[in-house]
């Protein structure tokens, strides 16, 4: 039973963290929320040089020009990887769905699977050592 709770906790903790961050920030947003795909988002789409909004999602050039601090000198390298991944996801035909399937479901599940497997082996190792 403890194992299942541990496994479940490892699986849901990143998602829980996301919910906590979003719900803590939500009441502090004063601007009009952005509506996209008939869904009302938390943040606005207003251009704001002080902070990121949905405009940074819709227009990467704006974000790079006004908000990026540390990667400015490395665009030659970062753009290739960044837009390479976006291009790969877009090639599937449905960018949004590919994002969810690969980046929100499959890759976290893969990482979770190997972490759980490793912890189970550690449990077996501990059992063996106790038997000595």
């Amino acid at each position, binding site marked *: 039973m403890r194992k299942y709770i541990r496994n479940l906790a490892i699986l849901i903790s990143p998602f829980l963290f996301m919910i906590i961050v979003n719900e803590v920030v939500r009441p502090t947003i004063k601007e009009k929320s952005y509506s996209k795909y008939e869904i009302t988002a938390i*943040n606005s789409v207003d251009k704001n040089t002080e902070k990121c909004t949905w405009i940074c999602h819709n227009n*990467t050039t704006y974000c790079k020009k006004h908000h990026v601090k540390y990667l400015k000198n490395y665009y030659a390298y970062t753009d290739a990887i960044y837009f390479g991944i976006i291009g790969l996801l877009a090639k599937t035909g449905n960018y949004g769905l590919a994002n969810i399937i690969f980046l929100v479901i499959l890759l976290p599940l893969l990482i979770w699977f*190997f972490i759980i497997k490793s912890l189970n082996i550690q449990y077996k190792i501990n059992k063996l050592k106790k038997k*000595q």
Partner: protein
Amino acid sequence: MNYIIELGKFIYAYCTDFIINLANILNLSYYEINFIIFCVLYPILIIGSIGFYLTQKLRFKRIKEHNQVIPIV
């Protein structure tokens, strides 16, 4: 089917909002947070978790052989 599409749209918007919020909390940018999470952290976590698993397998095999005991299933 419509419900699943709506749910997908909601998850996409919610995750994007999370990245925007994280960028503002950490005083970074949406571009930088995206790059850090999806271009740096994800590959490290994937390779790291697989590497950790293989190391654990090898450790278990060695300890088992050293102890010459029947494996615990």
